[in-house]
């Protein structure tokens, strides 16, 4: 939440980075990002927008330490990123919360996976606090399948925030949530992040969401993705606590400018679009239905 002009310390620096992923079924490599240089400053809310398949997710996965860049460097606090770390946590597009765990046990997961010095009671208190912050009180013992999409993403957000990480990475977190819930969640995220002073890297498809949340908006071009332009959002915070953000005098201008940038890319992306459907790359598995053995086993 840095105001423009204030001294900004670079926290995450990508320098002519190239990265991609392997399409297992087709056995070929796909370059998602090519020669991307981008700096995320400490305490800022950076939003990435761009057409689908342009490599936004790859970028965030590199920062998270899930994917290694093929070329170029990405540093965090001056050190090259080598795998995930406790200073970075993430909110996923498909929630990625464990279906066999209750809400509170899901939120507690980061404490189970990394060594820490908190007592059991302290952990329980942290979990309870964040449950209150995201509005999940009363659902502590519920399982994810009992919750709506919006509620599930609250669990995802709480799990990411419970350890108070330096950086919050969010990969289209509200993409699958209905429009009304989305606005509530955006306001909640803004409040949470302003409170803790986190650095956020946030991916979205929605220009409106980008303007509502971002300090800066990086427009990514078609795959292989490059940073096309970085737009500063000079609107004071909190933007979402009260009132309509769309009535802000700067809103229309920003929106039009961003739309013009994104439009060309979106049109260009239509033929470059690739099938995102998940396959395991194993033909035996892809033939399986929900209960595998019934379909293939002849019995006696």
């Amino acid at each position, binding site marked *: 939440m840095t105001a423009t002009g204030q001294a900004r310390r670079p926290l995450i620096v990508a320098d002519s980075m190239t990265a991609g992923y392997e399409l297992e079924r087709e056995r070929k490599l796909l370059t998602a990002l090519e020669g991307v240089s981008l700096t995320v400053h400490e305490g800022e809310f950076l939003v990435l927008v761009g057409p689908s398949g342009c490599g936004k997710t790859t970028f965030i996965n590199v920062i998270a*330490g899930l994917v290694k860049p093929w070329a170029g460097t990405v540093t965090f606090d001056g050190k090259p990123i080598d795998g995930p770390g406790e200073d970075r946590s993430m909110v*996923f597009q498909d929630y*990625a*919360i464990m*279906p066999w765990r209750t809400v509170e046990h899901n939120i507690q997961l980061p404490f189970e996976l990394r060594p820490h010095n908190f007592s059991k009671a302290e952990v329980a208190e942290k979990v309870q606090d964040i449950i209150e912050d995201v509005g999940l009180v009363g659902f502590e013992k519920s*399982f994810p399948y*009992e919750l709506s999409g919006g509620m599930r993403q609250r669990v995802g957000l709480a799990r990411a925030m419970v350890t108070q990480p330096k950086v919050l990475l969010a990969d289209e977190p509200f993409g699958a949530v209905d429009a009304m819930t989305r606005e509530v969640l955006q306001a909640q995220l803004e409040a949470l992040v302003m409170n803790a002073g986190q650095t956020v890297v946030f991916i979205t498809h929605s220009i409106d969401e980008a303007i509502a949340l971002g300090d800066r908006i990086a427009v990514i071009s078609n795959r292989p993705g490059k940073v096309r332009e970085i737009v500063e959002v000079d609107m004071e915070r909190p933007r979402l606590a009260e009132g309509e953000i769309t009535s802000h005098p700067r809103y229309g201008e920003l929106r039009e400018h961003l739309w013009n940038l994104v439009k060309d890319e979106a049109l260009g992306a239509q033929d470059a679009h690739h099938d995102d459907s998940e396959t395991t790359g194993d033909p*035996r598995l892809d033939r399986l239905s929900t209960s595998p053995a019934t379909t293939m086993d002849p*019995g*006696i």
Partner: protein
Amino acid sequence: MTQKVNSQEPTSKKSTDGAALTAQPRIKDAEWTWARIWTRYRFAIVTVINLTVFFIIWQLLAHFEVIGPHLIFPTFTDTLRALKIGWLGGQADDGTSFELLRDFVIAKNAWESLQRYAISMFIAIGIGIPIGLAMGGFKWVDAILSPYVWTLSSLPRLAIYAPLVMIMGIGESIKYALIILTAIFPVIINTWAGVKTTEQSLINAARVFGAGRAQIYKKVVLPYTLPFVVSGIQLSLSRGLIGVVIVEFLTGASTLGGLGWLIFRSASAFNSALTYASLMSLAVFALILVQGTRSMEAKIAPWRQVSKT
């Protein structure tokens, strides 16, 4: 009056998002009317009537020898009598065509089969789960075992009987071998599929929050695979039952060959009442087993039931 009470009857449908809902109000001290009895017990009532009619028709068909003589198609009452002697004892009094029907003959053979079944299933599940986990978790194990597992699981298991006899001869061990071979593959394949289909995003989430390889297995892959294993076990249990009956039929015995043996042996001796009594015993056991394990997955992994619908 009855109409009114009936219409206020709370629905017994379970709500899927029960957490958010409060309990439905219940009617206190409602009148005990026929309508209430009917709504509450209609399935039990229909089942009782249904089965009664079934057994009466059976009795009539057998009594008037519509299907064939008693040697081929016994009356329901003769079958009951065979059941009673076979399970509870009490000598067959007329001694005519009942050479096989001795005291406790069904009980003894059922116990024989049950032991064989239980031991084989224990081994099949005990070997199957680790094999499935190893195949799912390690690429080279998968590569090495894959051809055998997939060939054997696709092959009708009866066909391996001949080569197995040549190696093992006709004894007790071949029975276990064949039952295990019949039952093991659903467990292996389901376990393997569970490991393999573990959602990548869940694994990624665990990695982001600090999980190493061992923790990913413990906290993500194993819990994810558990319901797959359970449905694999379920399938294996019914496969194994088929295996037991077939094996007992194939290998034969002179006196005590198990329930499967008794069914075929009594049939070839034209002791139809004993055949039907043994078959009914097997049917009841299978029914209890299959229905009993059917709800296992729902209990262990309720989230899968919901996501399927």
